[in-house]
């Protein structure tokens, strides 16, 4: 039981708990906050996985932008979401076992898979800055992911404009 394992277990527990709170808590704003906690946990997991950039990016994007957006949306639609009474629709009793079933199935599948490397491979590039550089080059190099990258940028612009257009109060 190394420190890493302990840290991971703690983080995982926190994130999963937070995730559960997200889907169960009555007040929407709370679920948003719990979501933030979950995202934080995930960010830490990235950190443990030596993906520092992703960790920070996770914080910037999810917590700095997406979560804020959510909170905004919650505030804007405050009148409509009565935070009292059940937050679940009438099929939650179907959904819950089904999700559990799926989880079981996934675990089973993982169990039936023989690909687990017994030990953590040493990171080929120990210099983390090197990793960042490499990631950047991978993202913009023609034989790398430049096309998806550009597509993503286009997608973002489209989403931006679309969001403005959709949410525009034409009155």
């Amino acid at each position, binding site marked *: 039981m190394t420190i890493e394992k302990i840290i991971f277990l703690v983080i995982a527990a926190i994130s999963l708990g937070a995730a559960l709170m997200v889907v169960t808590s009555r007040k929407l704003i709370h679920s948003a906050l719990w979501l933030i906690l979950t995202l934080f946990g995930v960010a830490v997991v990235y950190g443990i996985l030596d993906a520092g950039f992703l960790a920070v990016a996770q914080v910037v994007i999810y917590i700095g932008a997406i979560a804020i957006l959510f909170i905004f949306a919650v505030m804007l639609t405050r009148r409509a979401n009565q935070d009292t009474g059940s937050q679940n*629709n009438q*099929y939650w009793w*179907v*959904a819950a076992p*089904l999700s559990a079933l*799926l989880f079981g*199935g996934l675990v089973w*599948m993982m169990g*039936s898979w023989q690909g687990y490397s017994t030990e953590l491979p040493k990171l080929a590039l120990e210099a983390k800055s090197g990793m960042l550089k490499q990631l950047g080059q991978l993202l913009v190099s023609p034989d790398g992911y430049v096309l998806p990258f550009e597509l993503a940028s286009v997608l973002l612009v489209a989403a931006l404009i679309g969001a403005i257009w959709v949410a525009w109060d034409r009155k």
Partner: protein
Amino acid sequence: MATNTLIWLLPIFPLLAFFAIVLFTNRNKALSHTIAIGAAFLSWLGSMIVFVRAIQGNLPFEKAIDWMPLGADKTTHFFIGVQVDQLTAVTLFFVAWTVLMIFLYSVGYHNFGQPKGDHDHPGLPPHGAKVPDAHGHVHAVPSIEPMYSRFFAFIALFAFGMYTLVVSDNLLTLFVGWEIMGLCSYLLIGFWYAKPSARAAAIKAFLTTRVGDVFMLLGIAYLYSETGSLSYKVIFNEHTLEKLAEPAGFLGMSIAGLIGLLLFIGTVGKSAQWPLHVWLPDAMEGPTPVSAMIHAATMVSAGVYMVIRMFPLISVGWHEGGSLTPTMTVMAIIGAGTALFAAVIAVGQNDIKRVLAYSTISQLGYMIAALGIGAYVAAAFHLVMHAFFKALLFLGSGSVIHGMEHGVLHTGDHAVDPQNMFNMGGLRNKMPVTFLTFTIGGLALSGFPLVTAGFWSKDEILADAFGNGYWLSFIVLALAALLTAFYTARQITLTFLGEPRTKEAAHAQETKWTMTLPLVVLAVFAVAAGWVGIPEGLTGGAIPNWFHEFVAGTLAEHLPVLEFNFLPMLLSMIIVLTGLTLGWWVYHGVKAGQPDPLAKPLGIFYTWMKNKFYFDELYDRLFVRPAYWLADTFTNKWMDRGVIDGTLHTISRAAYALGGVFRNYFDLPVVNGFGDMMGEGTKSFGHKFRAVQTGKIQQYMLSVLVFAVGILFYYLLSLLKP
């Protein structure tokens, strides 16, 4: 610039001008004619440069690109390209000059700068406009051509066609230029398309030349199938010609002869030789610059140019002084015949332009005849000279007409035909420049001895005929020369000398510089150009016969300059002078309203002359009416309506009945029944099951997930199985 590149560029400028005007500057008249004239000027400049470089030697310039891959293997190509040898050079020279001059002239001719007409509309010649001056007097002034830009676009295209034809190094591109000019002649002759006569003339010209072109195309195809190439280099080298020399098994002609004959028929159409000459006089319906363009600069010259170009092919199996090949005989006969015949008709014409038209025909006949008797250089020489003075004459006549129209506008009596020479007279005082230049042109045309260009060229032809002992053609051509001199004198006399026969003539007015400047320039050429071809024998070699030396270089075997002989020259001098004096003497005293003095003495023959020997009527009977009949009665009424439609109608009725049967006994009960059943079934099905679509998205996702999980577990369980 490299000469080859320059040559490529020559045709391009007018083409660009055409597109520019048609596409963009159509609205702006000034811009349009600036573009057109600019293009003409550029081409002129290029041509001059090419010409000068050509004179300096190292001919021919040629540049060809592989244009179209041939056959299964893509290695052999069809080459198209440009070529400038001596003949092309001189042709370029006169084409460039005349084209530029005509372009410039058109500006004045179409009354640029005048107000818009009061009741002009596109497709009709301008009727003139009424403008009040400072004192409130209303003056009738000529009005600007409504389709001014369009005109320049067309002649630009025309020039493009000519340049293409001249510089091309193979028969195909030559033919392309040829056809473009055919199109342009159609467009331009029918430029005032609202006039029925113009329409008719345009169609006539187009169809008539087409007849020739079909044969020409046949000739080209035959040539290609024989030699496998159309470029001059390949055709004119010795062993190709030898190969072509063997008999074709048709009237005992050689292959080359047959091809030459076919090509020559093309020329007959294009250069309006008998029997296809009928379109040319009617072509006078177009604006005068067009007439000049067609008769001097481009079209008819193109025909002759083509034959001259093809001379080595045509003259296969003929040697200097030898007996003529059948093709050449045909050419000689047709040429000489046309020369005389057209000259005769010309005498009987009163329309100033028609006279010139027929004189054109006859002069072309000269060239053809010259070629027919193997006078290669003489033909080329006469071609160039004729281009100059004929352009001059046409432009001059246009200027005269313009002056007359001015008079017509002044008097307002539109019944007076401003083209009829009997309405003119005494214009020499009214329009001196036109008078002088026109006279010079006329003298050149009639071949006034020793000074004019026409004399030298025509004399060379006559001398050739004489020297080689082709008596028949010599006599015929001499007669034609006489008549030429006669009707020229007649024309000048009727138009300029004597007293004005009408008020209009009295009020005629000199035209503006854009029209007179080209006249002057061309007049200079009409005189001076001839001096490059003075036979050495006359001057005892003091002045070298440069033209002969130069142009003869085109041919593979060198044509010897035949020894000089005074007799034909004296003869032609006498003939010309006689003709001129005769013409003047007959016509100098013609009063207003008096009929043609020749009418009485010649009698019936005069009417024949006047009606062009009824050729139009003959062709009308022979071809036009039958064609109409074939089209209307036979094809339309009998075949189309009767046979084809009848068949179709019966078939359709049968089909209709059959369809009815099908419909009532198969379609409605079976097919529709089935279809309706399906439709109804689907509808009711939908009604029953639409409850499933609740519009609640989570339900959908749930159902999806159920199946997804099901599949997942199916997969896992299948893993379990050994």
